[in-house]
């Protein structure tokens, strides 16, 4: 599960986090499901923070339009 989490982009992770919170808010979950969602949510938060910590702006110059 964590391997799969590593591959999530920031946008995907934030989106899933929002969905996780929404599902928890809806309620009607078994304790097992609720705990699984909670743990997943905490890992998503961590993953997002890790992504921000590791990020460095990459700048790339496109080939000159004339030469393309």
């Amino acid at each position: 599960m964590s391997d799969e989490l590593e591959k999530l982009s920031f946008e995907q992770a934030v989106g899933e986090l929002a969905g996780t919170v929404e599902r928890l808010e809806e309620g009607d979950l078994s304790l097992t499901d609720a705990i699984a969602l909670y743990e997943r949510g905490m890992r998503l938060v961590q993953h997002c923070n890790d992504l921000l910590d590791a990020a460095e702006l990459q700048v790339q110059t496109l080939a000159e339009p004339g030469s393309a």
Partner: protein
Amino acid sequence: MQFQFPTFQSPGPERGTWSVGELTDHIKEVLELDPELQDVRVMGEISNLARAASGHLYFTLKDAQAAISCVMWRSDAQRLRWQPEHGAAAEAWGRISVYPPRGSYQLVVDTLRPAGLGDLHVQFEELRDRLRAEGLFEEDRKRPLPDFPRVVGVVTSPQAAALRDVLNVLERRYPLARVLLASTMVQGDQAPPQIVAALQALDARDDVDLILLVRGGGSLEDLWAFNDERVARAVAACRHPVVSGVGHETDFTIADFVADLRAPTPSAAAELAVPDQIELRQQLAAGRQWLLGYMERLLAQMRQSLQGHQRALQRQSPQARVDTHRQQVDDLLRRASRALAHDLSLRRSALAGRQARLATLSPQATLQRGYAIVRRADSGEVVRSTGQVRPGDPLAIRVQDGEFGAEGSQRSENESERVRE
């Protein structure tokens, strides 16, 4: 200042032959004191353009009839926001001066603009109105920007401060983004087609999430490329959202109107393009808190309902029933024993009463007074009548402290029986 005219008439022919210097000085005076010639605006085509090492700019303005030498001193030439070229039509402001060493007069230019730019505002309004009528500025054409752009395309000049500003802002706010720079000239005649090509090159890529079209501040002429119809149409044609940031707060270009979002400056365009990691981190921290709070509430709830179930279960358990029954039994036993004790004491007192009455009825008391009870020894029957005993019959006689045997003898009826030992 017409009143000065008489001064140049005075040195005239009376002085005879002029030296070249005198004549030239006179010409210089005449020309340079003529207010008409000290503030001229002239239109012509640029030719013989030369930029001296000193930074001064030399050229000729000409039209079909005539030509005039021009010089633009370095201090003014530096302020030029466009590149004058040979053959370009231009409008020059300046004053006429004489250069005595060459005996030439020239226009000292302080301002030089591409011809026709006096109508820039008119052109701007004409194009703006036409594109607006076409619906290119409509609000419903504006597309929302992605929340988390992965690739940000930037169209600008690679040397410009605008690019540094944009990169600084992106790095500070959202370093997760990747920047794709499509470099282009941002002023001059070549700029519009280059800007169009740069926009198209970025827009053709699927990985680009949005495009920043930026340029630093400058004069209306400097920013003119962003008022070009080709640029406006290229912006409108983009699949990806375009954020424009051209010039300063007060500068509005046609590209701004067409763009999905207009930012007042390049830095502001970058700020609008990406989220701020400080806010993102705060939101993530808030999310973590929410999850923790949720879990606490959930566990408290679970614990509470567990306790409820536990109590309900205890009420239903066989042990509880046994306990209940045991208690009922105890109660019954207690009640029973209380009742029994009561009953016994009643019986006891009743018995005592009877004993007392029995005592009063007992023959013992009579025996103690000296009476005796006579029984036949053989049958044990109490002898109440003389007829019950024949002489020789064994008798048992009971007195108060015991019994002794005797034998019947003579009897006398209706008289007291004599008892012999």
